[in-house]
C-alpha cells in the first residue's frame, strides 16, 4: 500500500472513532436496520482497462443491508457491473473479437453517521470496509474468472425525505419504516489483492441511492 493511501485510511478510521458526541442524540431513534438501493458510476484506474473497454457507460448498481451496532452501522453490500468491448492486437488496436467483463463487487463495511438529532434532515457519514470482487472476462476463445480482494473508504450524505410529505412519512412509519433518505456517496476502492500486480480494479465509485431505516 502506498504511503499516501495509508494516510487517507488511517485518517478516516481516526475520524470514525473520535466522534462519540453524536451517540446520545441517536438513542431515541428506534430503527435498527437500513436497506438501500444504489446506482452509480465506476471508473477503474487501470489504463489498460480503457484499451479494451473504452466505449462503455461505467454503470454500477448495489444493494446494501445494514445493522446498527452502537453508534456504527455494519453493512453488507453486493453489486454488479458489466463491460463490453473488443479485444486488442499487439498494437493495442481493437480486433473483431468481442470481450465481455462482468464484475460482482461485495463488501463488508462500518459507517459512522454524524447524526445529532432525531429527524435530522442532512446526515453526513463516513466509513470503511473490506471488499471481495468477483470477475469474469470472456473473449473469443477464452474465459478467465476469479476474485480480487481489497478495501475501501467512503464519504456520504443522507438527505431526509420525510419532510417532503409528512402524511406519507407518518403512514409508512406506522408500517415500521422510520425514515427514508436520498443518499449520495463517494467511495474509493483499492481492489488489487492488497498490492498484487496484474488485475487492478481500483477506482472511485460515485453513487446515488434510496435508503430506508426500519
Amino acid at each position: 500500500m502506498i504511503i499516501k493511501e495509508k494516510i487517507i485510511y488511517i485518517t478516516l478510521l481516526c475520524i470514525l472513532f473520535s466522534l462519540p458526541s453524536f451517540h446520545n442524540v441517536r438513542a431515541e431513534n428506534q430503527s435498527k436496520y437500513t436497506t438501500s438501493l444504489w446506482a452509480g458510476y465506476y471508473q477503474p484506474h487501470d489504463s489498460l482497462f480503457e484499451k479494451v473497454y473504452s466505449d462503455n457507460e461505467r454503470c454500477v448498481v448495489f444493494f446494501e443491508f445494514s445493522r446498527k451496532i452502537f453508534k456504527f452501522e455494519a453493512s453488507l453490500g453486493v453489486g454488479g457491473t458489466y463491460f463490453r468491448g473488443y479485444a486488442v492486437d499487439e498494437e493495442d488496436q481493437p480486433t473483431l473479437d468481442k470481450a465481455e467483463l462482468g464484475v460482482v463487487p461485495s463488501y463488508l463495511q462500518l459507517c459512522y453517521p454524524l447524526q445529532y438529532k432525531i429527524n435530522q434532515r442532512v446526515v453526513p457519514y463516513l466509513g470503511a470496509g473490506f471488499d471481495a470482487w468477483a470477475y469474469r472476462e470472456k473473449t473469443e476463445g477464452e474465459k478467465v474468472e476469479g476474485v480480487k480482494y481489497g478495501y475501501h473508504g467512503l464519504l456520504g450524505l443522507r438527505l431526509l425525505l420525510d419532510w417532503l410529505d409528512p402524511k406519507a412519512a407518518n403512514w409508512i412509519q406506522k408500517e415500521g419504516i422510520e425514515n427514508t433518505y436520498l443518499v449520495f456517496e463517494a467511495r474509493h476502492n483499492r481492489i488489487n489483492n492488497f498490492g498484487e500486480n496484474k488485475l487492478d480494479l481500483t477506482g472511485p465509485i460515485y453513487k446515488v441511492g434510496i435508503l430506508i431505516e426500519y
Partner: protein
Amino acid sequence: MIFLKKELKFKQLSSGIFGNMLQYFLVGAFLFSSVFIFSNFCLAETSLKFYEANKPGFNEDNKYQSALAPVVVEGWMYIFTYNENEAYHLLRGSIDDLEDPNSVWEEEEEISLAEVLGDNDSESIKITAWGAYNNYLYLATHENDDNKAYLWCLEDPNLADHNLTDPNGWGSVGPDGISGKINHLEVFYDRLYIAVNDPDATEEKKNVLWYSDEETPSSSDVDWESIDCPELKANKAISSLYPYEEDYPFGKRLYIGTENENNGCELWYLTEDNEIKFLKKKGLIDKKTNTSVLAMSSADGILYIITQNSDGSQLLNYSKEGVFFKVPSWEVTSQLNSPLSFVKLGSYLFLGFDEDEDQIWRVNYFDSTLCKNITAEKVKDNDELLDADNHLRWVFADSNNGYLYLGIEDDSEKFGLWRTAQLPIIKIFSISPSEKAFNDSFDTFKFEWKTSKRGNYNIKFDECFDSDGEVINELENVKDSNVVDALEHRTFSLEIGTDFKEGKYKGHVDYDPNQDGMESYPVQFSFIYDTTAPPTPEITEIISGNERLKITWTPVEDKLSGIDEYVLWYKEASKEQDPNSGEDVERNADEEKSINTGSSEECEYFIKDLVNGKRYLITVSAKDKAGNESSRSESHIGIPKPGKGLMELLGEDGECFIRAVCPSRVIWNTSSVKSEM
C-alpha cells in the same frame, strides 16, 4: 351473337376544364397556378365500348350471374350461373366463337353440387372459389349445414367426351374435414395454395393457408400442409392472395393481405421456401386507418395494392423497389365494396366495383419503370351499361386475344356477357440477353413479341443516352411497320456493337393508331450496353480477429450500368528472401480464392474460416451490372489472430472464487479446462 365493332373512344375531362380556364388566360400567373393545382385534382375519365354476346343460355329467365369470374382453359371459357333454386349451371364456349354469330355455345346441364358432394340438399352448398391450373379445373365449395369446405378437381375439362356434370368426374382433393370457407385459390412455385377462413374458429385457426407440393393435386390422398404462423391465423380474414411472378426487385413472392376491423390490416408474403414474413412498409399500412387489403396486382416489377380505410375511402398504392407510394389520381372517397377484379390487360390494370352505380377503373402503368405517368382513370362505357339498374359481377381480361369482358346482371336479373372490341395487346415474351445490362460478350440484342390483333405496329426508341448523359441520335426512330399476324411470333433484333454503341436505351412497341383510330396498349423495353470496366476500389482497412478478417474498401461508381457487386481475392502468402535484392518478398503459398460480396452498397466484408497467424494477401475489384470487372486494387496483408482481452494484457490467469477452498489456478478454455495444482 352480334358484336358491333367501333373504335374505343377516349375522353379526358380535364382538358375541357382547362379549355374553360383559357378564357382567363390574361389574368396572369396567379390563375395559371390555380389551374395547375386544380387539374391535379380533376377526375380523369376514359370511355370504352362494350358489346353484348347473346349466346343461347346467356340471357334467359331465372339464370343469374355468379359473382365468380370466368375461367379460361386453352381458349375455352367457363362461366357459372345459378337459378332461383340456387343450383349452378356451367356454360362453356370457345372464345373464338364469340366472333361468329352462327356459333352456339354449349350449355352444360345443371351442375348438381349435391350429387358431386353426395348430399341431397343443394341449397346449402355454395361455390366459394374456382380456378384452372395446368388443365385441371378446381372448385371450392362450402356446405352451410356443417360449415365444411371442400376442394374438388376435374382433369382436362376441355376433352370433348368429358361430361362436366358427371359427379364421377369430380374428385375431392382438399385437406380432410376443414371447417370454414375456401376463399382463395392460387398457384405459386408449382404449389397450389388455398386460403381458408372460419370466423367461428379459435384465434389460432381463423385463417389457415394450406398448400400442397403437388402443383395439380388430383386425388384424395394428396398431402396438405398449413403455413405455421399464429399471427397470420389470428387475423379476421385473409382478404387477398396474390402470386407475384417477377424476379425483379425481390424475387417471386406470394403476397397475403388480411382484414381486421379494429387493429388494421396486415401484409405478409411467402418466399419460395414457404418462409412467411411480415411486410411493414411506411406509407402502405396504417393500423389506425387501413382495415383491409382489398386487392393486389402487379406489372413491370411494381406491386399495386388497394387498401380500405376505416372512413370508407380506398387507396391505390404502388411499390417501387419496396417503397410504397399512392397513385394521386385515384379518388375513391365513397364506401365501395371490394373490387371484383384487378386484372392486367396490355399496359393497363382494370378494376371493377359492384355499387349503386357500377364502376370500372383503369390504371395506366406504362413507363412505370421511372414511376412516372402512373395514373388511374374512371372508365365510362358508351351505352351506360354501368348504370344503377345493372350489377357488374366481374371483370375479366383475356390478354392473349385482346378482350376485356364484363359479367353483367341487368335489372331483370338476367345474365349478360359483354366485351370490348379486340384490343391491340402486345406481349414481349422473351428478351435476349435477359439481363437489363450487358457487355460485348453478346452478339445481338433481340426480343420476341406477339400481338392480339392484326395491324401495323411501331418499335420506337424513346431515350438513348451515353455514359455522360448525352443523347445518342442513331436509334431515334427504328420502325417495324410490317403487318403482324395476331398469332405469329415476331422477332426484333439489333447487332450489338454495329447497330448501336455503348449507352442506355429505352423504347416501346405500340399499335399504329392511324389504321383505325384504336387506342394503343404499348409495352416498353430497355437495356444498357456497357463495355467499360468500373474504376478500381482501394482497400482502406483490414481488421483481424479470431480466424477471420474484416476488409473495408472505398466505394466506386459506374455511370452506365451501375456497380453490381465487389469481388474479394485472397491467398495465403509467405515471406521469402529475394535472391537478387536480398530483401524479404511475399511468395504465394496457396491457390487464390475469390468471394463475390453480392452487394453494391456494402463496402466491407468478413472473410471467415482462416488460419490464425497465417499471412493473407488481399485485393478487391468491382463488377458492374453488365459483367465488366475493374482491375484489382493494390494487395494488402491481413493476419487473422485472436485479440487479447484485459486479463491477457495484464497476465491475469484467474483464480477460484474462494482461494482457501480451491487454491488452484484455473484457465477456462472453450475446449478444455487446465488446472495447475
